[in-house]
């Protein structure tokens, strides 16, 4: 059912290496993400998963390698450029404006869609007003989509963790991304919240056709959701393939069961 909607290559990562001082975080990583797929990145703690996402959305600048996004190859990309090209993300540690309401947080995700200048916005007349109404409607559609009507006006800081995660997803969706990067969207959730979140990830993918790159620890979730899985361990690429292939890959099993690593 999911297979038929996957299109051509959207993002290609080639020979990426990233170091912080002598710490090699990513070592010669190459993979691609196809349009419309759900692509998971898994690996033990410290494997370099979040760093990989940070490289993709331009937050980290790799020393080697290149990234091709929608046909344009570049060595590095500033985060705001990545965002304006249709990449949005959520964070491992929730990064919302705690004192602002759910609605306002989601509205901030519309920032790049706002075209009028500060002058019009401050006066709240003419084009700024129309624009705000359009953006409000877009935000409301997301609220409806994520079933968070009841917390629309609540300050985000007072919400339970699972709901904050959902609001964060909402803010990322507000940018109408083509590629959505989700950094452990289900961490710290109970099984019911996880199930809801899985539903939303699948719905985002099928309703909006959004391509999703996902970091997740819960293997059951990964195997259920993903079209393809990339496995990292200590900055190295261990495996890449369909969920079943990865599941049965001996190196992956060893990494997860904690076979000692040879010292480099």
């Amino acid at each position, binding site marked *: *059912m999911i297979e038929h909607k996957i299109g051509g290559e959207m993002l290609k990562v080639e020979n990426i290496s990233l170091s912080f001082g002598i710490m090699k975080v990513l070592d010669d990583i190459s993979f691609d993400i196809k349009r419309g797929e759900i692509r998971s990145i898994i690996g033990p703690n410290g494997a370099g998963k979040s760093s990989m996402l940070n490289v993709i959305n331009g937050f980290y600048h790799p020393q080697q390698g290149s990234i091709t996004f929608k046909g344009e190859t570049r060595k590095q990309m500033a985060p705001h450029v990545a965002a304006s090209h249709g990449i949005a993300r959520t964070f491992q540690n929730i990064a919302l404006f705690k004192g602002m309401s759910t*609605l306002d947080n989601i509205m901030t995700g519309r920032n790049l869609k706002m075209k009028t200048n500060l002058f019009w916005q401050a006066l709240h007349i003419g084009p700024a007003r129309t624009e705000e109404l359009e953006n*409000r*409607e877009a935000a*409301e*559609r997301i*609220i*409806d*989509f994520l*079933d968070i*009507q*009841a917390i*629309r006006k609540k300050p985000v800081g007072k919400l339970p963790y699972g709901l904050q995660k959902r609001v964060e997803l909402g803010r990322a969706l507000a940018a109408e991304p083509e590629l959505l990067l989700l950094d452990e969207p289900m961490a710290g959730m109970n099984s019911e919240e996880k199930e809801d979140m899985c539903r939303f990830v699948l*719905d985002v993918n*099928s*309703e909006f056709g959004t391509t999703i790159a996902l970091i997740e620890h819960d293997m059951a979730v990964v195997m259920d959701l993903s079209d393809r899985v990339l496995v990292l361990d200590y900055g190295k690429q261990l495996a890449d393939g369909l969920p079943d292939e990865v599941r049965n890959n001996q190196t992956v099993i060893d990494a997860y069961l904690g076979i000692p690593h040879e010292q480099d």
Partner: protein
Amino acid sequence: MEHDTALDTFPKLLHSHVKLRPDQDAIREKALGIWQSWSWAEAATEIRALACGLASLGLKRSEKLAIIGDNRPRLYWSMTAAQALGAVPVPLYQDAVADEMAYVLDNADVKIALVEDQEQVDKMLEIRDRCPKLEHIIFDDTRGLRHYEQDFLHDYEKIQQLGVEFDHDQPDFYDQEVAAGSADETSIMLYTSGTTGHPKGVMLSNNNVIITARNGIIREGLTSQEEVLAYLPMAWVGDNLFSYAQSYVAGFCVSCPEDATTVASDLREIGPTYYFAPPRVYENMLTQVMIRMEDAAKIKRDIFSYFMEHARKVGVKILNRESVSLKDSLLYKLGNILVYGPLKDVLGLRRTRLAYTAGEAIGPEIFDFYRSLGINIKQLYGQTECMVFICVQPDGEVFADTVGTPAIDVEIKIDDNGEIMYRSPGVFQSYYKNPESTASTKTEDGWVHTGDAGFFDDKNGHLKIIDRAKDVGKLNDGTLFAPKYIENKLKFFSFIKEAVVYGNERDFSTAFINIDLDAVGNWAERRNMAYSGYIDLAGQDEIYQLIKDCIDKVNQDLSQDSRLGNSQIRRFLILHKELDADDGELTRTRKVRRNFVGDRYDILVDALYSDRNQCHVETQVTFEDGRTGMLEADINIWDAAIYPVSAVTQDAAA
């Protein structure tokens, strides 16, 4: 408001509103954060298109359309659309699991199911092979259904488009079908849950529904300007009456909440003038208020408790239009500005002229809380089998322990065994495909067995429900013995956790009491009484005296009633152990199994009916880890005070 025989079906009522008030709002729904409304004329257009669409799918007279989902305008319209074709809408409880739905869909011979969303579609797909008569499924919300390709699945809007084309080709079809509708046709079929066996489909005719709705409107003086929030399950008869039938008869607007989780804030935004809620909703609201007051600043708390105290004193009297002193009246007005008004506003009940509750007993203190704020909350007594109304409390005559006087056109009689029976224009046609149940519930001349026992109160002529009829017995002298009624009275005291009352076919009533360890323990500690545990505390004379005082009060209360007066509790004991579901003494839902307890402690029951003042008992108990042990105790038996039974008096109880 005379019963207009030309307006004997819902589609006909709809068209009368299109003529009378085409631009007035008929229904509202909050979507994307904004209240969207449809006027009567717009609603009629939607309904016409849907009805024609259903016709093009092949829905015919007397065939069934299942409706499953939260309260949504489109789902309410689908009721009228089905009725326009002479088909019968069958709303189902939207949170029922697929298996439960399978029975109803199959039993009701449902041909088309109109459901809200993917969740319901999935349930339908799961049970489809068990319901061979189900031909089509229509869904309202397309989300998540993009990749469903079954040809029997249809988008609501597509069906409406089909309907518009159908209407274009056969422009007279819809009007002819509406004109063919009649008063005696089945208007709706509602399944009653039924405590035993399968649910039964209650078939109600157009006359049943429309006349009952109209009588309710006349009795309470409702108008086309009411505001109602439709938030209770569509499958429940009350929702069908309050949010559908009465809206169509009176012409008032109904609002659908945005989501099940936003009902409280939607309620506040709409500010209904006419409101129904089961007791637990009122309870929850009160709890929320109290919790929030705990967190408020001291000065606010003090103002709140001062004025609430005043409201308790005079609020109910003012609501009942009784005279109060000028000072009290002025103070109440001040309270209204400072406390009652803002509080009602937060609850969403500021504009509420009429609030109903029903279903189960509501605690007197909860009832009085709302009434003292000036909210006219009243109890009603009703059943699906008569489109709700049997009894309603009249304005100004509201008592916590009665359900009021018969509704308009309702006759009530009490059967020899104490069972309440009624006859009314609302009495259902029959249970669908179930002549046996129909025959055992409804007599040939139209009287319906309620299964409830009760009587008309001597003091005020109101109906009082005491128990399920099958649980009511008689003392040897013929006095009505309603154990649950007495037990509930006992349990209103915080010191009494459980009570088991005996007396059927005996000379007098007796009771086993379980004290509430928290409440009684706290009471004992404040008096510096030493005790080692439940069994020790339960045996002390001070505690016996405490419980005796409670029982005396219940006896005094019972003595006010000529029918129940002789069932005052003559002797009682406090059990040496707490009744426990692990020992089979309670059900898992914590209901006392009276007969089991009676058999298990038969020597105690015998002792209560002897002249002994003490009884030795040994009981096997099951501990939480499954081990068993023996519990031994000497249990005291005390006599309670007996009050002379009053003859029929008109004095109000103290």
